[in-house]
């Protein structure tokens, strides 16, 4: 975790170190941040052996004049929705999404007292399983550092990624949900005794199948189908589908295999020189994912 990109916010966030939530969870170190949450590695007083991860709504706390009470309520609602999804679909500590531990409420000293206790004393903290390990994007960089990544390693990573997403989709689809934000940043490589497992870590990517009101669409530009990206740029709200999820998986696998980020709004190049030595069957598989063929014919879960 570095201060890069956080500016003045970084020092402010560090003021949370040592904060005790519900007399049980103690924030210990700032672990990461994303578009919607700041993550803290946390001690659990009931289980000192096993640190957990606490998620706090991402807001510009260092620029308080530029966020309204409505912004705060909206960010908290998003976190609470993620907590509900995690409680419903959370994993068992071995596979799937992280395991949900608690949704706590407590004071947040980053808010100014001018906002009143209804804001300052009611911050939601989502406590969940901590999955140690690099993200898929970081793992890809590690594999390539100093030498070209070997094909067996890359194909293993691609297989694990595909399996993780298909497994999650098998859980979600029957209950009317999709995982819409497939990107190497939301997939984590967990080191296990028997090898590596890829796990989806951000419950914010789960959305209902079919348009729903009051649900903010999660997306990462580079992994959207080009036509969805173009529609977003034009200000349209395009709901993700099974085909777009499979397309995002295809772009993610392309990233894993080539080591490059896909360009938003452009088709990925399967004739890329980095894929020369890739088995043809894998290239054909990625091609099918990108074209949404699996999803259209058989539905996500059946492949």
């Amino acid at each position, binding site marked *: 975790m570095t201060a890069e990109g956080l500016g003045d916010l970084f020092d402010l966030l560090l003021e949370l170190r040592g904060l005790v939530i519900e007399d049980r969870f103690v924030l210990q170190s700032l672990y990461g941040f994303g578009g919607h949450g700041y993550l803290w590695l946390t001690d659990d007083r009931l289980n000192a052996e096993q640190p957990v991860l606490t998620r706090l709504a991402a807001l510009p706390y*260092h620029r308080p*004049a530029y966020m309204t009470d409505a912004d705060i309520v909206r960010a908290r609602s998003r976190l609470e929705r993620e907590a509900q999804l995690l409680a419903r679909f959370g994993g068992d500590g071995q596979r799937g999404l992280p395991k949900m531990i608690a949704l706590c409420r407590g004071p947040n000293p980053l808010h100014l007292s*001018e*906002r009143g206790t209804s804001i300052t004393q009611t911050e939601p903290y989502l406590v969940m399983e901590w999955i140690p390990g690099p993200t898929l994007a970081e793992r890809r960089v590690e594999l390539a550092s100093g030498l070209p990544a070997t094909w067996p390693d890359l194909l293993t990573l691609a297989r694990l990624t595909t399996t993780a997403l298909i497994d999650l989709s098998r859980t979600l689809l029957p209950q009317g949900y999709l995982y819409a934000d497939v990107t190497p940043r939301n997939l984590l490589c967990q080191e296990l005794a028997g090898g590596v497992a890829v796990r989806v870590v951000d419950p914010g990517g789960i959305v209902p199948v079919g348009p729903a009101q009051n649900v903010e669409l999660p997306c990462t530009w580079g992994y959207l189908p080009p036509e969805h990206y173009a529609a977003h740029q034009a200000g349209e709200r395009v709901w993700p589908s099974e085909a777009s999820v499979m397309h995002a998986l295809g772009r993610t696998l392309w990233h894993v295999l080539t080591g490059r980020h896909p360009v938003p709004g452009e088709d990925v190049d399967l004739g890329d020189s980095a894929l020369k030595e890739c088995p043809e069957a894998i290239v054909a598989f990625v091609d099918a994912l990108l074209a949404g063929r699996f999803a259209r014919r058989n539905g996500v879960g059946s492949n």
Partner: protein
Amino acid sequence: MDCPQCRQPMVAGARFCQACGAKLPAAPEALRVGAIAVDASGGSSVINIGAAAPAGVPGEHCPICGTFNRPDTTFRCKNCGRAYLCTRHQDSATFWCAECAATRAGAGAPTIAPAALFQVNYQFQRPFLPRSTEALARLLVSFRSSEGLDATAVTSVPLHLCLVLDVSGSMNREDKYPLLRRAIPRLVEALSDDDCLTMVLFSRGCDVVASVEPIAACRKQLPALLERIDRSGVKFGDRTLLAPALRRAADQLEHARQKMPTAADRVYILTDGELHDAEACRLMNPRFRALEAELHSYGFGPEFALDSMKAIMEGVPGGTVKPILDTRAVMDTFGHIGELSDRIMAREAEFIFTFAPAVIAGDAFRYEPGSQYFGAVDRRSKTFSVKLGNLERGRRYTFLFEGQVRPATGPEEAVGKAELRYRRDGGLETVETAVVVGRSDEPWHLVQVDEVTAEICAVLDALRRDDPGTQLRALRARQAIYRREGADPQLMALVDLAIAKVERGETLDEDEDRGLKADRSTQVGGGVPEGLRSLALSWLQRGESQGRMKWLTDLVERVEQATVSEVLRQLPPPQHAVLMAWLKGGDDPLRELDSAALKAFDDSLS
């Protein structure tokens, strides 16, 4: 907008056409109400409440609280005679101002406190903010010497002026060093008898050619001073090393403070190109900050070291970096510097703005002199302060603050307190103003926007955001402001050119970017048309062809009626190239173009 019947221009907010008497439509998005009132343009019995006040409409700051009022919301006290007082200061029993009424109640003679040297005023972009919800308040706080002050009764503070002048090899051109040399007598002439002058030349080395010399002595020995400059061993060296010169200048400041303890001091740096010791210069910044010496710089020509100069002056009082894009203007600029010395009324000034406890502090900016983004005001202390150096008579100092006000219950809310501290004759003086905003949920209150303040906000917004939309809004606001004020023609041309480029999705080149980021030149001129008229005169003197002369005179008329960017869009490519060459260089464009481009230009005229 014109009258629909006679096509004569309508007066903003008027009910009837002044030319033909036809009934006029309401202004767009305005709520028209009947009332006996006088609007900003005067005389209309119906006002368009909610319509944005046209830029430049008459208005004044209240002499009691400093808030900005349009005339229709003020009264004149019949006892003390002061005008533009806020109606909330009117005593309901006597109809006098609150100060006069209080004196009467105390049975004393009506006395008004003597006008302070400076008055702090303020103006909100939106004079009314919603009462039931939170809102972002944007306010300009400005101050200048009080209007009612008897200028002759206030003596100016003597000045120690320190000039640090670049005489490196790049200055050895007929459009630079000779002009700079000729400007020095103008400066000496313009300074007051009580002032002192220090002059440090720099190139590979540095040379103090005048050390805290009284101006009277400088005037007597002017030829000797110029000779010292001409014969200086550092002249036209192959390096531009400013840091040693800055060190000498700082030494001279300390020396002068011992010699003239009640004098103000001011340092001007003039340089024409990149510095070879930019890092060493940056290291001089703490010393100038500690000295609290006022530091300014001029970029001589378009290739000055803007970023290096800004780094040297960060956090130092003054801190402006102004371009002299047309080097011929240096004489006027030096004359202006000299004249300013007579206007210094106070020194060691500090401006402090403290947000009220219930307001969440946002960002702070300075608009003039020299625009600057200070970032967020400390969220806990809610206090912003800046050292200003010397305060001049007639100069306006303007800051912008943003803060979030919380839901309120009353019709007004305190947003903060502005405080100006300065020294004069050794004593510390303070002027304070409480800043109050209206709170209302009435739609016709909430749509009111002060256009001038909105333009300044748009200009300053571009200091913290660099997306093309924000930059374009800022450029258009600058264009409107500069036109209204009659700014430096080169700068106006640059803004017009930048708008044309940003609209086409192009990026600005390095010189253009530097010119725009620099602080405004103090030079005042007649804009692009005036510059083109000068060009036409020079073409006429050297006997340019009739076709070219006709084209140029037509062009002057066109830019008087439309923006340069609009004219540029209409010109065929060869003529476009000629105008662009002039806008970029400011010199004769026909000398900048090759023979093929000139032929294409002449062909396009026929």
